[in-house]
Structure formats: structure tokens, C-alpha cells
């Protein structure tokens, strides 16, 4: 039987992700807010494209849609490549192009964080929500995408609640923040001293800021560098030679200097603890060689973690998440099947 145009109507996903497209390619394919607007306008003009939504993150650019013909998808690809000034044949080599049930299953996996570079990360959930809200605002969604996206959100929540796929942090900076939460609870009132103005220290400081910490002080052997970083972090700077005398004023100390030996002695920490009443002290040593005397970890009410400790926790969490993948996939497969049946009837 010759398929009719109606019979070819289907759900699709077209795009590129971190799985096949390396960073330099994703950079070229990534679209700005204005480019997103332009692409939306162009796609809206395709009469055979019934519904669509554009998901644009640092790890993926994906267009979810309902097309009446296979040719519509080819036209979308052409429009996209033209806009991004990207060779279509090159795009064909790295592109993700899936249909119907597979497209549903893919969205459920993406929303659940299973398709992410950092498996189980939850940021993607918000990004999909934003993309869907934007599409709704522009009136480019319809009965099929509305159903599929809403069910994808429910599935992601179900996966998060009923498996351990999102538990535990998998980056060193976030592990440090999670540990600080285990000691101090909310981080809004904590005072942080950053010793060293390097990249890893900055990343850690930013991770703390993203969880509400606002009182950050930077100290470095080079005061100028400390002041530059302090300015970038909206923090204050402290002369390096005053660091030990000020330990008692801070709750969290992050060390990442390139000093050849210890810059925080056990006696300085012991003295600081006596001045801090019952408030614990959390010390994070990200330096190699270590910046903090290891005996600090033996002091009561102080918690010392070095780079190896944090990396080991991150690795443990990563392994734990990976062991949950199968469980998540079963949930997703089951839900995708039910959802596809509902979506298919709306095509």
C-alpha cells in the first residue's frame, strides 16, 4: 500500500548531543536567544510542521516536533544548518534523528537525566521545562507535544523519587558543597575563606555561591590575584600573612595554593576552634602538595577533606548512579510505551 501523507505524520526528534557532537561542533550548533527566535519563526512557516519545541543547552540542541511528512524533517534540518552556517552533510554525520516511540523514550530519558553527560543531573529538567514553556508561549505546541512533555516531567519526577539516580554529587566542587550542607545545613550564613586564587578554588567558591553562600573572602600569596578573584566573586580580599589569625572568623576554609608545604598548621586550627564556641570548622584541601596539616582532621569539631577524599566520594556517587541506570530504564520503557499509545492516537 502506498503510504499517504496522513499516515506519515509522526513525532520526531532532530538535533545533536554530546554523544556524537564534540564540544567544538556543539559550539557551532548552539543557538543564541535571538537565533532561537529566528529559527522559531522559520519553523512556524513550515505548513507541514504541526507542533515543535526547541531544546537548546550546552550539551544538546534538539527540536522535538510533529511533522506531517518525512520531507518536513529534511526541511527543518536544512533550515537549521543554513541558519548556523553548518554543512548539512557534516550535520548528517553527527545528528540525532529519531521517530515516534523512540522519540518519546528519548525525551523521557533526557528529562530524567539519563542522557546527560553527568548522569542523574537535574539541571536538564529545568531546561526542558523552560523550552516547553517557551514553545507554549509561542503557541507552537499542540495536543501531542503537550501530552508528551507533561508526561515526561511526571516520569522524571517519578524516576528521581523512586531511584537513587540523582543522589550524591559527582563533581569535586559539588561534593564539597554537599559536605558543607551536612555540617552547617543552610549555607546562607556561613563564612568562607578561599586560600589560593586558582581555577579549582574559584570553581568551588562558585559552587558555594550557587547554594546561597554570600560571605566569601579570598587570600592568595599574590594579593593582586586575590583582589582580582575577590572582585569577580563579589567577595573581599585578605592579606595572606593574616590567614592563620583569622581562621576563627570562618566556617569553611578552601585551600588550593601551590605552596610547597603546609600553610595551615594544626596549632592555628586548635587555637581557632577554642575561639569558635560550638561552631564546627570545615576545611577543604584541594592543593597538591597539601596545604593543611593532616593532623587537623583529628581535632574535635573540625572536619578535614583533601582532594583524594572528595574525588573518592564523587567516584562512589558516580558508581552508585550508574548502578541505578537499569532500574531507571525499566521505568522509562514502561512509561514510554503507555505514553506512545496515547500520543499515537492524537497524531
Amino acid at each position, binding site marked *: 500500500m502506498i503510504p499517504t501523507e496522513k499516515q506519515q505524520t509522526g513525532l520526531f526528534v532532530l538535533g545533536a548531543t554530546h554523544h556524537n557532537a564534540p564540544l567544538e561542533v556543539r559550539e557551532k550548533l548552539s543557538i543564541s536567544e535571538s537565533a532561537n527566535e529566528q529559527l522559531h519563526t522559520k519553523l512556524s512557516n513550515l505548513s507541514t510542521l504541526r507542533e515543535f519545541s526547541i531544546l537548546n543547552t550546552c550539551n544538546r540542541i534538539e527540536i522535538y516536533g510533529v511533522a506531517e511528512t518525512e520531507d518536513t524533517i529534511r526541511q527543518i534540518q536544512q533550515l537549521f544548518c543554513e541558519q548556523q552556517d553548518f554543512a548539512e552533510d557534516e550535520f548528517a554525520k553527527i545528528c540525532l534523528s529519531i521517530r515516534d516511540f523512540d522519540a518519546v523514550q528519548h525525551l523521557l530519558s533526557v528529562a530524567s537525566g539519563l542522557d546527560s553527560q553527568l548522569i542523574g543531573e537535574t539541571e536538564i529538567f529545568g531546561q526542558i521545562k523552560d523550552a516547553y514553556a517557551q514553545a507554549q508561549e509561542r503557541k507552537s505546541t499542540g495536543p501531542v507535544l503537550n501530552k508528551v512533555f507533561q508526561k515526561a516531567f511526571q516520569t522524571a519526577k517519578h524516576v528521581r523519587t523512586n531511584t537513587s539516580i540523582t543522589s550524591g554529587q559527582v563533581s569535586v566542587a559539588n561534593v564539597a558543597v554537599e*559536605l558543607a550542607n*551536612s555540617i552547617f*545545613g543552610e549555607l546562607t550564613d556561613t563564612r568562607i575563606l578561599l586560600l589560593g586564587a586558582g581555577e579549582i578554588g574559584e570553581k568551588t567558591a562558585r559552587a558555594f555561591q550557587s547554594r546561597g553562600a554570600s560571605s566569601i573572602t579570598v587570600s592568595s600569596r599574590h594579593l593582586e590575584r586575590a583582589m582580582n578573584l575577590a572582585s569577580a566573586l563579589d567577595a573581599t580580599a585578605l592579606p595572606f600573612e593574616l590567614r592563620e589569625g583569622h581562621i576563627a572568623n570562618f566556617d569553611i576554609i578552601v585551600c588550593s595554593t601551590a605552596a610547597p608545604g603546609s600553610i595551615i598548621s594544626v596549632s592555628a586550627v586548635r587555637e581557632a576552634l577554642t575561639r569558635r564556641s560550638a561552631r564546627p570548622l570545615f576545611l577543604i584541601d584541594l592543593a597538591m602538595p597539601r596545604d593543611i596539616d593532616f593532623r587537623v582532621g583529628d581535632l574535635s569539631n573540625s572536619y578535614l577533606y583533601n582532594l583524594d577524599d572528595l574525588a573518592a566520594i564523587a567516584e562512589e556517587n558516580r558508581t552508585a548512579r550508574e548502578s541505578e541506570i537499569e532500574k531507571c530504564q525499566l521505568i522509562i520503557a514502561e512509561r514510554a510505551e503507555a505514553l506512545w499509545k496515547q500520543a499515537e492516537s492524537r497524531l
Partner: protein
Amino acid sequence: MLSQLIDRDWLWIAAEFYLVGFLVGTWSLMRGGKPSNVLMNVIIFAGYLIQLTGLYFRGMAVGGCPLGNTFELFQFTAWSATTLYLVVGVTFRSSMLGFFTASLSASLTLTSLLIPAWDATRREHIFGGNTWIEFHAAFALFSYGVFALLALTAGMLLLRNYSLKHKRLGGWFSFLPSIMDLDLISVRLLGTGVSIMTISLAVGSMYWIRDTESVNAFKLILTVAIWAAYALALSMRLRGKLISTRFGWTCIILFVIALGSLGPINSSRPPEPPVIGS
């Protein structure tokens, strides 16, 4: 059918509810999950209401606050701890505290029910019809309930400290509240317990001054020693002299001593002929 239940039957059912709370929590933790906060609170609340019914019937039968033997003292302590958990602990939003409360209440109530000798006899008219003395006794025992909950939060503080010191953060350690949260609630509980016990002793002392023979020296010394130990712990904690693990261990050891003193305090009263319970 319910009308045929006597006080001990109600108390058995309540103890079983607490036990179910403990088992549900243990099962969740063994599966690598966190005990459900809602489920835990529902189970504890149901157990609490049933225990309240049992204590009410016992109180009606004895014509006063049921504090006449070791069985009743243990029951009342468990009930006090649960009351405080439901008032304060629920807002703490830690299902682990609910799990530990269910475990503690199950231990106290089941132990008291499983030792028949503790409820074989009871003293009547121990308050001499004086409601103030009854108030003193009930308040004193309520403070023990507060100290029981304090022992739980102190235990959680020690576990959290252990997990952070030994870098064992996975599994059920990850469900424990933060060090600061546990420390804060422990200090508040210690302050509350000491305040309640102080009020209780102040009321009791007014009657003791009038009639020093009414309380024997052993009971007086033991009770005042426990109060003084808790007050000292509070004072030291507030001055920053008793912190972290030393604070945690102190709260637990003091509660064990306080709980252990209930039996001797009860038996130090002048003997009376046995009375059959309701």
C-alpha cells in the same frame, strides 16, 4: 469489642504501632531509601493516640496520674518523648528522628509490658490527693521524656559526626540532618528539659519543706543529682565548654542514668500492700 479492652491491651497495641514504625523505617533503610516522613508520622501519631487512651483508662482506674509503678513510669516517659516529638520533632522535618523516636518508644513500652513484675503491684494515693504533688511528679517525668528525645538527637549527632570524620557518607548516613541542626535542637531540648525539671522540683520542694519526712533521702538525692547533672551540662554547653561528641555522649549517658534511676526511685517509697491493676 473495643469496650472490652483494658488499659494494658491499649498499651500493647500502641507498643505494636511503635514497633511497626521501627520495622518500616528499618526496612526502608535496608532498601537504601529514606523512611517516609508522612508514613512515619502517621504510625507514630496512631501509636500515640492509642497509648494516650491506654494511659487514660489506667488513670481513670487509679484515680490520678498513672505513675504508681515502674511499668507506668516507663509508659509515661515514652508517651512524653512521643508528645514532644509530635510537637517539636515534626517541624524538624527529619524522618530519621521519627524513626529513632518510634524505636525508643517501642523499646520503652515493650520492655515495660514484657516485665509483668513491674506492673504486679502499684501504690495507691501516692500523691495524697494533692494535685500539686501530682503535677510535680508528672512534670518531672515529662522532663525525662524530653531527655529521652534529647538522647536520640544526641545519638544522631554522634552518628553524623562519625560519618563525617570517617568519610562514610553514603547509605542511611546521608539521611541524617546536619551537625548544626542536630546541635541546635539538642541544646533546645536540653534547655526545655532542665526548665521543666526545675519547675517540677520547685513545686515539689515547697511541700518537702513543709514535711521533710514525706520524701526519703535516697529519692531526693538521686533526683536532685540528675537535675544538677543536666543543669551543669546545659551551663557548660552554653559556655562552649561541652561541645561536639563530648556533648553528645554526655546527653546519652545522663539519660541512661536517669532512666535507670526510675526503678530505684519508685522502690524507695514506703511499701504498701499490692493492688490489683485494672
